[in-house]
């Protein structure tokens, strides 16, 4: 399989009144066609900024260095017009909040058909037929009627399905789903994730799922990258990661998910403290102040990503966890 996306040494800096904020700090990732990459981390770890860097939708003042190679082209150096032709057609996105990501004053039909007509050479009736087909595929009942409706006439789950239909409309090679279920009811979340997985297989597209919930990527992503304070701190094939995680942060993330079988009133082992101030980078490991394994060296130097015994498993830690995680974590 060929590599579709290579993120090489990407740094994103945002100027703030308190100094430069390094939102993404030397990240390297790659994704093959048709595969799924999960990017996991808590709020503010840089995962959304990283996805915006791929989409070239960073805030105007943000500074991006490094390369974002997509399908043989460096997106960061692409002319605006070439980038525009690429977006929506080969590179699509589903945002977190379907309540704000659809235009409130345009009908669903307009918002679907404009993408199709922008990139595919279809006339209005063919574009409408394709829109109906897409809405059916994402599980919207009575799609013909929906086309004339406005976003506020649909529920949140329905709107996210529509956003997915828009993203799928031109058969993209890569779909970036930025926390696609965070704003939805729990009962809808699994449906939306299953829908994404099904359409991904059917259309053989690559997908990046960004989430704060390790549970979302388990069983859905081929590979998982855990981000903390703008850096990738652990990266592994999903099964290898859940079999044995090396980075204490990953373990803490997993432990912070409520367990169904836990006795009532069991305190949740939330990660204490907060991520470091991104405008004041630490000398040592960014997670050290919150890490229960941290010792001397962790506060002095930044651990580099190193290979574990399992192939493809990388972690950035001086004191990797020895035991198999997931058992008593």
């Amino acid at each position, binding site marked *: 399989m060929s590599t579709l996306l290579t993120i090489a040494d990407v740094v994103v800096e945002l100027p703030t009144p308190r100094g430069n904020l390094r939102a993404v700090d030397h990240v390297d990732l790659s994704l093959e066609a048709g595969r799924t990459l999960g990017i996991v981390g808590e709020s503010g770890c840089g995962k959304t900024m990283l996805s915006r860097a791929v989409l070239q939708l960073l805030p105007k003042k943000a500074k991006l260095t490094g390369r974002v190679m997509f399908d043989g082209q460096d997106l960061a150096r692409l002319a605006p017009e070439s980038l525009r032709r690429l977006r929506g057609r080969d590179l699509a996105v589903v945002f977190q909040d379907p309540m704000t990501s659809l235009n409130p*004053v345009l009908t669903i039909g307009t918002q679907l058909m404009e993408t199709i007509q922008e990139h595919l050479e279809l006339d209005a009736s063919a574009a409408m037929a394709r829109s109906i087909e897409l809405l059916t595929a994402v599980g919207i009942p009575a799609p013909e009627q929906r086309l004339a409706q406005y976003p506020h006439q649909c529920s949140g789950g329905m709107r996210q399905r529509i956003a997915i239909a828009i993203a799928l409309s031109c058969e993209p090679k890569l779909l970036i789903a930025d926390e696609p279920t965070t704003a939805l009811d729990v009962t809808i979340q699994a449906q939306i994730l299953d829908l994404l997985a099904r359409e991904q297989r059917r259309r053989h597209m690559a997908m990046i799922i960004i989430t704060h919930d390790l549970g979302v990527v388990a069983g859905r992503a081929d590979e998982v990258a855990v981000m903390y304070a703008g850096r990738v701190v652990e990266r592994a094939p999903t099964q290898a990661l859940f079999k044995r995680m090396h980075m204490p942060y990953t373990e803490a993330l997993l432990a912070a998910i409520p367990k169904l079988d836990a006795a009532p009133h069991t305190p949740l082992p939330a990660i204490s403290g907060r991520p470091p101030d991104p405008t004041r980078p630490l000398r040592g490991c960014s997670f050290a102040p919150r890490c229960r394994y941290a010792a001397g060296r962790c506060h002095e130097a930044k651990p580099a990503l190193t290979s574990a015994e399992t192939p493809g498993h990388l972690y950035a830690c001086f004191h990797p966890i020895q035991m198999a995680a997931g058992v008593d974590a």
Partner: protein
Amino acid sequence: MLNFVVRRLLAMLPVLLAVSLLTFLIASLLPGDLALVILGDQATPENVAALRRDMGLDQPLWWRYLSWLGHVLQGDLGRSYRTGQTVLQAVAERIPVSLQLMLMAEFIGLVIGVPVAIACAARAGGAFDRFMTGSAFAILSMPSFLVAILLIYLFALELHWLPATGYVPFTEEPLNNLRFFVLPALTLALAEWPGIMRVLRSDMIATLQEDYIALAKAKGLKPARILFVHALKPSSLTLVTVTGINIGRLLGGTLIVESIFALPGIGRLLVGAIYTRDLVILQGVVLLVACGFVIVNFIVDMLYAVLDPRIRHGHA
């Protein structure tokens, strides 16, 4: 939607009633005895008393208001004691002038203001944006009589392109009519566009931060489509309000501009009525202008619903 229209129409009734009461009170509470004004200071007390009786001025205020309101509801707004013209005749004679001036001024204002606002918002903080925001502020702070005089000096006296003052009805000489209106309309428009530009620019900048604009970009839409289709409509609610207020205001005539350019509009009719204490004309015209304002606001409300489907469906 029908429900919305009916609700809005019903809401207009108390407003119109309040307007009529206020109009009547303002005219009635002006100092001076109307009968004395009409008859002059040579009048005998008997004549004054007789005229007061004839005009109903000896009746209590509430009764005079109700009887005036009764006449108004039958379409009789009264008649000028000076010219014998009815209020409706006087207004019908003057309103085409004010209406045309208002339409042309608002049109020019929008034609300048809207594109400038969009261009500024698209590159907010850029050189063009800063230049136009600054110019708008400078132009806004120039009084209209000054603008009028400068325009007359430039286009009428120096370049001889346009007449300085005068008026012919559109029905008689359409082309000359338009030539007479260019300078006064431009004078008003120069005061209108900075406001139009500023509200649309700031709404547009806020809209461009929205998620759905980011998604529109991610969909690979052309920049022009993003600006005009995705951003302009949701940003234009305040613009519609401001335009409605402007139209309502200009509907009542623009005294200074009408005077400078010698246009026989509503503004000059009102001032004439005040000078000659023609209270019937005064209160009739004020009432009609106020009704016009209320109707324009009703249209603005309807436009909200056209622009934003959430209002149409009663969600917002």
